[in-house]
């Protein structure tokens, strides 16, 4: 394990589940992870097709894990398997194809997305309805496969073609062109025509009733069921969160004025109000003169203190702030999820969120 390959140019590690690893069917789905030297099952076809395309490839190892075992022990499995895979110094990792097998697809996606940040390219393949597609499509290149095993050869061929490009260091600009699912990511490019001409042409087609294609389809926004109302405010821990960028003077965490990459958690202990000496606005998307003069206009600490005495709620001693200016919705979601976990741990029962 781990010794340099004898005479092949590229080293590949292949991940498969218990079935393709030769262990057994669904009844063996909780088999623990293990490694086989060399290719196994579909890995043999994979290696053969790479070499047919003149890519000097060796599948140095096949890593196998039961689908149920992976699903139930994901964190531990990854902690165990990722270093194992790294020891082989692979130039590429191939997972699956998972076809329509849900747990298998999730496992393949998880493995690939864990390897990429370590600089190890990893690809997989699955059917369009595999539950593992949506969670991982944005970050992992996923080849589109059929839903049943008879589509094995075609899926492997596509993976080989994609794999060769990656091994040669070519940038995969448009995954769809390589047989992968669209990642749903926006990528800039230079059109042949300036936007003014494209806009007028699109309008003429729309007026005429001719088909046209929008350059940005408006997405669908999901809804969350409202949390039940608070019956009595007395004793309820209430926290404040703001996207208006109110931070202690000097912006100690350097929250960016736009496209914030982080949020801050700041103490309210002992503060009866905010003023221009103690706090400022870090938000670059609005005229922040008024907020700097009186930060209570965005983060209402003064009135919270008064209402505390009147309504009897317990103020959470920390507030959270970020800058909601051009902040990507994904980041905002990520911050909110992390903040929510912390607040729940700290016993927060209600939140007032202020935005500009």
């Amino acid at each position, binding site marked *: 394990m781990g010794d340099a390959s004898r005479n092949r140019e590229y080293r590949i590690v292949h991940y498969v589940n218990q079935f393709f690893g030769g262990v057994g069917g669904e009844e063996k789905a909780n088999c623990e992870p293990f490694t086989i030297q060399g290719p196994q099952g579909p890995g043999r076809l994979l290696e053969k097709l790479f070499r047919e395309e003149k890519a000097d490839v060796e599948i140095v190892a096949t890593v196998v894990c039961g689908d149920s075992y992976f699903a139930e022990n994901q964190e531990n499995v990854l902690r165990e398997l990722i270093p194992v895979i790294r020891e082989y110094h692979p130039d590429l990792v191939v997972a699956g194809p998972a076809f329509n097998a849900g747990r298998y697809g999730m496992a393949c996606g998880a493995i690939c997305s864990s390897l990429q940040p370590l600089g190890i390219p990893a690809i997989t393949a699955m059917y369009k309805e595999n539950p593992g597609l949506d969670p991982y499509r*944005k970050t992992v290149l996923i080849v589109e496969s059929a839903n049943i095993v008879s589509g094995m050869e075609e899926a492997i061929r596509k993976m080989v073609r994609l794999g060769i490009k990656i091994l040669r260091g070519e940038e995969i*600009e*448009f*995954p*769809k062109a390589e047989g992968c699912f*669209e*990642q*749903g*990511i*926006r*990528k*800039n*490019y*230079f*059109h*042949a*025509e*300036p*936007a*003014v*001409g*494209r*806009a*007028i042409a*699109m*309008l*003429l087609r*729309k*007026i*005429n009733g001719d088909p*046209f294609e*929008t*350059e*940005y389809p*408006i*997405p669908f*926004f999901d809804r969350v069921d409202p949390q039940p109302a608070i019956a009595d405010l007395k004793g309820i821990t209430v926290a404040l969160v703001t996207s208006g960028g109110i931070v202690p003077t000097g912006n100690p965490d*350097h929250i*960016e*004025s*736009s*496209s914030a*990459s982080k949020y801050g958690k700041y103490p309210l202990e002992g503060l009866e109000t905010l003023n221009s000496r103690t706090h400022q606005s870090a938000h*670059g*998307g*609005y*005229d922040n*003169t008024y907020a700097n003069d009186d930060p209570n206009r965005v983060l209402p600490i003064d009135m919270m203190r008064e209402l505390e005495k009147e309504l009897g709620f317990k103020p959470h001693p920390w507030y959270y702030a970020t800058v909601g*200016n*051009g902040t*990507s*919705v*994904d*980041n905002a979601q990520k911050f909110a999820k992390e903040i929510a976990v912390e607040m729940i741990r700290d016993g927060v029962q209600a939140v007032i969120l202020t935005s500009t």
Partner: protein
Amino acid sequence: MSYARPHAGVHPVTHHWRKITVRDLEFSSATRVENGKLLIDKGELTALLRSDPNIKDVKLAIARPGESVRIIPVKDVIEPRLSRIPDYPIFPGVLSAWDPDAGGILSGEIVSLCGMVVTTVGSIVGFQEGLIDMSGPGARYSLFSGKHHLVLDISVKEGMERHEHEKTVRLAGFKASDYIARSSLDGPLSGGSRETLINPIDPGFHGSEKSAGRKGKPKIAYLYMLQSQGLLHDTYYCGVDVKKMLPRRIVPTEVLFGAIVSGNCVSACDKNTTYHHQNNPILLELLRRHGTDWDFVGCVITNENVTLGDKQQSSTLAAELIASLFPDGVIVSKEGFGNPDADLMMNCSKIEAQGIKTVLLTDEFAGQAGASQSLVDGHPKADAIVSTGNANEVIVLPPMEKVIGDDRVITELAGGSSKCRLPDGSVAIELQALIGSTNQLGFERMSSRFK
């Protein structure tokens, strides 16, 4: 309402646009155009600008296309122009009093100095000024890398309040442009090109062709949204702060004269500099093929205010004004991003509700990985969008040999961050920080698509 004031019969407002192109820029003894070069009397211009007591110092510099130069932090970019119409000045209402509705817009000639621009930089007033690279990977994102720049680096006196600071720098840019135009374009001119632009006639005007329409040609209108959200986020129409206006029609070629000027810096990528307004390609294209490929029925300007009530009022009025032009379809251009997405959607839905088709020009803020939601608001009727690109995409800009202005502010610009400087002197910065890179008037070719 701006309207055509005919002398006899119905004559549309007509402007003859003379363009004198210069291929170089140099400091010299007197300001003039000579042999295709613009020569500038540094002393005279500096003295003129310093006559404003608020200005402590002005440094002038020149930047040429292809040079290893970065101009930062940029506030405005302006093209010098001279009006040859006695009672119709350049930057009407800004450098001199002017009411667009008192006497009507007069026809006549206007001259512009093409190939060069006046660019203002100076100590940072807010977070969202930007940069222009004259060469390297950043240069392809904006037309400004192809211009010769006279850069005004302006310092104001100590202790100035921010609103005053911004206004001082803004006016200095217009004064400088006006001085250059008067000094170099007055008198007989040789060479250059000429174009005649004929405006649509107000459909309410007696004798107009509103009901007749030109047979078989689609009728197109333009809704021109202007940023109006406060300090560093403002726009002015004939000197009036657009946030204090209601939506109104304009005569399209008014923009040639600088009727719309920028006090906006938000963000560098999609704010319209005064140059962008002066050369609005949507207006120009709609005018150029008016009567041949379509019937351009008119232009309405509207604002992007900061209260929900104002947004609702402006969008309702703008939609009604547009509808009164009886268009088949409307181009809508947005300025800025974020809450103006809400204005865009309100404008779109209210115009579509009248049975009029819309196409929207907008950029995107889809996160650095492009994985996020591009706009903060949406509407099912916004089904025809032209995208001018994802402003969050990161670009690595190499260090430039010369910086005009102050590049220490790069980490403070919207699109920059405390981590954007790389060890070799490059900066990894979002396109958001590059002036004009995602301009929503349609100047540039960059777009975005799903990968």
